[in-house]
């Protein structure tokens, strides 16, 4: 069985501690703000414009990501992992990832993917982005059901009247 916590921490140079310590919402927001551009850039690279799927920016995928992982009931390990993986990427690319060309970004992410840590992090980013794009529009992404329309698949009825992220 995969030991999830080990799985998330192993291979990290930074360790989870600073993010687990971020207990108050404002601490978390500060941490999130320090990596938000990187997170957005990764999502935009995964879901670019001119694809058969709607793009990350117009689908507000980063807002979804923030609302999800900032929720107090959301898995605290994954929360820390998302932030820390972004920081790791910034560090690997000496703070230049966001300003890179698409080709350079592709190269940087594929290199990151070569590490098992990076590959786990990218996979988590993909999952959270897919959750945004294909969940009910009530969660803020999948704007005007654009995600559903792109795949001709629709959530069933009744649709949710409230968001649920955690208890």
């Amino acid at each position, binding site marked *: *069985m*995969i*030991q*999830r*916590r080990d799985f998330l921490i192993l291979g990290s140079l930074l360790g989870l501690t600073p993010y687990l310590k971020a207990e108050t919402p404002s601490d978390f927001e500060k941490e999130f703000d320090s990596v938000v551009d990187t997170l957005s850039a990764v999502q935009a*690279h*995964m*879901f*670019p414009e*001119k*694809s*058969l*799927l709607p793009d990350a920016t117009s689908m507000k995928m980063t807002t979804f990501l923030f609302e999800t992982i900032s929720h107090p*009931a959301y898995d*605290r390990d994954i929360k820390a992992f998302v932030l820390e993986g972004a920081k790791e990427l910034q560090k690997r690319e000496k703070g230049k990832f966001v300003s890179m060309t698409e080709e350079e970004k*592709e190269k940087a992410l*594929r290199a990151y*993917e070569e590490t098992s840590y990076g*590959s786990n992090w*990218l*996979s988590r980013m*993909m*999952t959270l982005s*897919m*959750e945004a*794009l*294909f*969940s*009910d529009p009530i*969660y803020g992404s999948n704007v005007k059901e654009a995600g*559903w329309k*792109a*795949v*001709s*698949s*629709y*959530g*069933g*009825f*009744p*649709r*949710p*009247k409230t968001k*649920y*992220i*955690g*208890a």
Partner: protein
Amino acid sequence: MYDVVIIGSGASGGAVAYTLCKAGFKVAVLEKGRLMKREEFSKDELAYCRRDLVTPNLFEEYHTIEEKVEGKWVATPTYESGWSFWNGNIVGGSSNFMSGMLHRLHPDDFRLKSKYGAIDGANVVDWPISYDELEPYYTLAEELVGISGHFEAHKYEAPRSTPNFSQPPTKENAVVKLIDKSCKTLGIKSLVTARAVLSKDIPGREACYYSNLCGSYGCSSGAKGSSREALLKPALATGNLTLMSNTYVKYLHTQKKEAVKYAVVVDTITGKEKRIEGKMFVVAAQAHESARLLLNSKNDLHPNGLGNTSGELGKNLIFSGGGSGQGELHKDHLKEISFSDLMTTGLFVNRTVLDWYFVDHWWDGKFKGGSVEFMFEHQNIITRARKNNYSNDKLVWGTELGERVTKRLKDQKSIRFEIFNDWLPNDDCFVSLDPTHKDKYGMPVGKLRVEGHPQDVKVGMYIAKRCEKILEEMGAQNIYSGISSSPSQNLVAGGCRFGNDPKTSVLNKYCQSHDVENLFVADASFMPTGGSVAYTWTIYANAFRVADYIVTQLKN
């Protein structure tokens, strides 16, 4: 003081409550989870399938799972692994979220040992009752729960006392034509699956509205035969039922050796502790949790757990063996039916194969096999979009991802089979109390050891090979199957075997504790062997049987 206190509101708790309330007894049902009414359910994939809307937060309530690592048993808490063993902790339990593909056990499932002999490393025993004793209750469950279907005689289909289902089958996707034809070509008999979903309205419950998302979701028309819709609602209508949701039971207290006096419970909202007294106590918390509760109820009079003089409490836990497989039906290579018919959403694939329920073959040998259900791949959008997005071990993203995902969801539909075969009871599959881990109420959590028997995998592979042939005949592409020895956490039974000998079983044939007279266990815990179908119909039926016995006891 209640006549009967029932712990758990799922299939078995509901059946016992229904019977006793109708018979005029005062009943309390204690349910850890909250009450979600029909109106509250939605098809929110995130909430129901990817977050924990209907199960406890694993950091607060969990299990530890023991696995053999380099010859040693290592227990991992499920909050580490994310491998939850909760199955729907709201009023009505996991019956709210079942797909409802149901079967009766076959008469030979009650006498597996006599029929097939002992198997090395497996603790197979015959049941103390026969199919004939349970048959009237299968019929009762069919009516009360609302099971739709169409009976067709087959050598491995259990006999029935009524000619056919009173509810016809739910509407079917055209793909059943392709399945039926392909099976026929291969000399395999495809049967209509019985399903705990109403095809016609009945008072208080509307027929299925074919939402396309059934299993894992609550039902918004009342068509699904959950304990909540089918049994607890009518039980409440009698005025005899006190339904206590948000009520966690810590342990049962015995003052004298032979009787439970009260349950010690915690209000999960206020944290307040109180006692619930009753004449009789019925444990129905789902197999692994029922055994845990009885183990947690140990005291000076019952030092090894309540009703455990046999030492068998928690032992011989079983799951469902088998696995699944699937293949893609592509727009360009579709036989027999039109692509738009195939893509019509909501309709069921009610097809079962029982041809390998028992195998007696000159070359393959004689052994207990299993059943097969056909269905579409679960229609969750996020799950389907997220699947198979690797190419040469690299995550696919960008425009390539767009092409891949749209193609996968628009140009094909995956058809799937699930195999159910016996999970042989063995010495390395049981629940005990974890010596260190406690849940948020301070009670030791259940520690599950979940090893299967090699025979289970052999049987699963035998059937999977044959099912792959059906998919091939149907023209499916990219066919694969996976038979695994890992447990099906949503199909769990055993742990409180019933039997006639108090030295080797926890319960008598009425699922009453051999040791404690006013204590019953009504869920799937009683099953010494599980049969090769989902347990649910048997759970309902047996709980009705147990309830009838409790009624006669109370009347005396």
